[in-house]
């Protein structure tokens, strides 16, 4: 009994220290994001007397669009990309062995002409069947054997001759100016900038016509709106904060802009991981630090894309499980970077943060949900203390979520209706009731799957982003 009491005391101290560390880190990052947003706002009012559309020095971009069974969305996605405002770009859609109508839909919509010869260079990907060019627009379609998203991206990345490439998802709508905004760091620092990432926003519920988000709104789905709150806190303000201290270890696979040569130098995307975006950026950091090359990787919050998020618990669970397994994979692959000063703020802050907070966090939280009932059963739990502590924890969670909502209004104002803001704030409260607990459970399951060697993607049903015509 004494041993158990000691164990519970030690565990309690551990949870408390961890709790203070995690929440302190999150609050610090959210406050940093305010600094980052203010800097962006300071720069914005003064546009330079320079039109990038007329300059021969704006780097060309290849937009890589890997597509596997994306028939409902592929045409609208390409049309959205074609309307992007950027002086010099081409779209390379890679049909990754789709078993549905993806290729046919592209052929019909864009009058694709097959290049009637085998591509003479070996691309580091699964077999290429055919390559097509569109008649009226700068679109290339590579039709290949299925090899996964990384494999598809590698096909495009090693095919293009453009100095930059942008990886996007097929269910993504890019805002018209997003590419130019994401390219700004490359224009400011053409020599050293290696990668930039934009903000991913939730398209579900928005009015979308002609591949443009006409009206930003929340969905009627509580699950989607919980994700809206998460995306604002984690993918927007969280990344702004980490970028401020050069500790960004991920650029979203839905929208990232990279220097082609740098990614080729590291061999392209890894096909051994299920979160290729995270692993690529960590490997870029590693390579450039190892070779003592000065470089920049930045988050550009005003460059936004809109994407469809899962609307069912099972699809969301699959997605979060994949993300968590991918995080564990990437950590494991590059664990020797953790805590090493030669990797700068990535080794000392960014990567340890990912390990201690994002990887361990859900697991320790889950252990807490076990620990509390055990302590209660053995009579060691002080109910009033527990409830007070729970109140403090929930209060901190709400504070951070609402702070990120303030940052969103202050810096971006995507949601223009008070009712939507109030609803997002409401979900900032509600996510503490069962949603966080459910996510911790998913993470536990993902940990077990990871230990068992599961590297599956899971299915996501594409609904199409556009409203059906009346």
């Amino acid at each position, binding site marked *: 009994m004494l041993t158990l009491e000691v164990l519970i005391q030690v565990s309690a101290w551990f949870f408390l220290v961890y709790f203070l560390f995690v929440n302190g880190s999150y609050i610090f990052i959210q406050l940093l994001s305010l600094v980052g947003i203010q800097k962006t706002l300071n720069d914005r009012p003064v*546009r330079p007397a320079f039109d990038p559309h007329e300059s021969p020095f*704006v780097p060309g971009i290849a937009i890589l669009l890997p597509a596997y069974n994306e028939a409902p969305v592929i045409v609208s996605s390409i049309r959205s990309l074609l309307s992007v405002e950027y002086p010099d770009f081409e779209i390379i859609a890679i049909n990754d062995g789709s078993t549905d109508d993806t290729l046919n839909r592209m052929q019909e919509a864009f009058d694709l002409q097959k290049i*009637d010869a085998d591509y003479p260079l070996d691309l580091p990907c699964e077999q290429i069947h055919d390559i097509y060019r569109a*008649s009226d627009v*700068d679109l290339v379609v590579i039709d290949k054997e299925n090899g996964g998203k990384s494999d598809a991206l590698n096909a495009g990345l090693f095919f293009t001759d453009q100095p930059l490439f942008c990886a996007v998802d097929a269910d993504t709508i890019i805002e018209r100016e997003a590419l130019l905004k994401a390219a700004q760091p490359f224009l400011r620092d053409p020599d050293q900038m290696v990668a930039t990432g934009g903000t991913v926003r939730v398209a579900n519920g928005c009015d979308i016509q002609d591949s443009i988000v006409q009206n930003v709104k929340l969905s009627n789905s509580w699950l989607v709106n919980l994700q809206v709150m998460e995306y604002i806190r984690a993918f927007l303000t969280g990344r702004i904060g980490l970028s401020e201290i050069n500790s960004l270890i991920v650029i979203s696979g839905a929208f990232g802009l990279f220097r082609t040569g740098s990614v080729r130098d590291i061999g392209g995307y890894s096909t051994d991981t299920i979160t290729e975006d995270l692993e690529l950026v960590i490997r870029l950091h590693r390579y450039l630090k190892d070779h003592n090359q000065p470089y920049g990787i930045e988050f550009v919050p005003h460059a936004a894309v809109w994407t469809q998020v899962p609307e069912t618990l099972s699809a969301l669970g699959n997605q979060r499980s994949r993300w968590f397994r991918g995080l564990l994979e990437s950590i494991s692959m590059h664990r020797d970077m953790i805590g090493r000063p030669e990797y700068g703020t990535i080794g000392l802050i960014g990567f340890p943060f990912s390990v201690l907070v994002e990887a361990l966090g859900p697991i320790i939280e889950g252990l807490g949900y076990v620990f509390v009932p055990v302590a209660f059963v053995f009579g060691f739990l002080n109910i009033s203390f527990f409830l007070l*502590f729970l109140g403090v924890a929930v209060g901190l969670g709400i504070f951070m979520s609402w702070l990120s909502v303030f940052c969103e209004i202050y810096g971006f*104002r995507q949601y223009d209706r*008070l009712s939507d803001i109030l609803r997002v704030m409401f979900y900032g409260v509600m996510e503490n009731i069962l949603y966080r607990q459910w996510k911790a459970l998913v993470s536990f399951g993902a940990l077990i799957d990871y230990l068992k060697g599961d590297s599956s993607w899971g299915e996501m049903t594409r609904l199409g982003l556009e409203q059906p015509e009346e």
Partner: protein
Amino acid sequence: MIVPETLLVWTLIGQLIIVLILGGGIVAFFLWTKFRQQKSKSLRKELQSELFERLFSSDPNWKTWENDLSRSERRELQTLLNDSLRKIEGEDYDRLRELASVLGIPERARRNLNNPGRRYRALTWLALLGESVEPHKVINACKENPKLRDAGARILLRSGHPDGPEKGTQLLVDNGTQPLTTMGMDTLYRLNNGVETPLLSDLEKGEIRNWNHSFLVQILLVLMNCMLSRALERPNWLFDLLEHKSSQVRLATVGVLQNLGWQEEIRRKIDIEQLIHDPDQNIRRKSYFLLASWGNETSLEWLRNTLDHEEPGDRFSIVKAFHLHPEGNLSELPDPFSNFVDWVRAERKVDSSRRIWEMSKTWV
């Protein structure tokens, strides 16, 4: 208990207060910014309508209009003016400049050249308005960092001052250690494209000794795009750069050669053998296209000399260069090149039937 309950109680109370204040603050801030945004939007709409009505009338009478403007209207109008100056040319642009003058923008901008906090905005306004500012004043205001130097050089470009190209070029290249921004490269290009090319004088004087590799590459990229005003008088710097230890410098130099290749004297002196056997594949590839751009029998002969190259990337580029060469014939290429020839022919066939008038990007 590891933490006293009273501490938790006070923490919880404090949190509740902070969260409630934050929540209230969010709502209040949202409503306030929404109100301002809507007001600004409607004001802008009215002002825009009035602006363009006056702009296209026989007499805009800016002064009368300006006298009646409130402070917030004036502010919105300046924003509109900033946008419009970027899109409008000719007489209408001159009229907008008059409006800027009536609003006192150029005078304020000149005063703010001495104000570090407002300097960049001031420089941008002066560039947009094409205001003439004495070069020494611009240079004094702009030395601090690349962003200011870009903005200053832009003024010298737009002002039409006779010393503009030379002084603007100096402003941008004097540092030589911090890379230029894309705007800086663009400005340098425009300062050197056509009537004068002060950059060439700097290069001929040996200024490159003070430049780091990255900066030198950027300068060469600018030269690669410029229509040069004269032949090179002292081209030795060019040949020296072809032997530079940095492959990026060598690559950019080949690009400049492509621009200067019409000078027979330069063609004769270039060591083509060295270029087409450079250890860096990108340089070899660029050299094949250089030979294609010369378009004569000698350059075709040189291309034929590359047929023993075995690297697939080289072979691909050689075939493309043969295709681009006016006297090149894909049929004369030997069997090991057949896959590449098939592809180039098939791609050419598809390109010729496309309805957009530009070469595929893979051909640069």
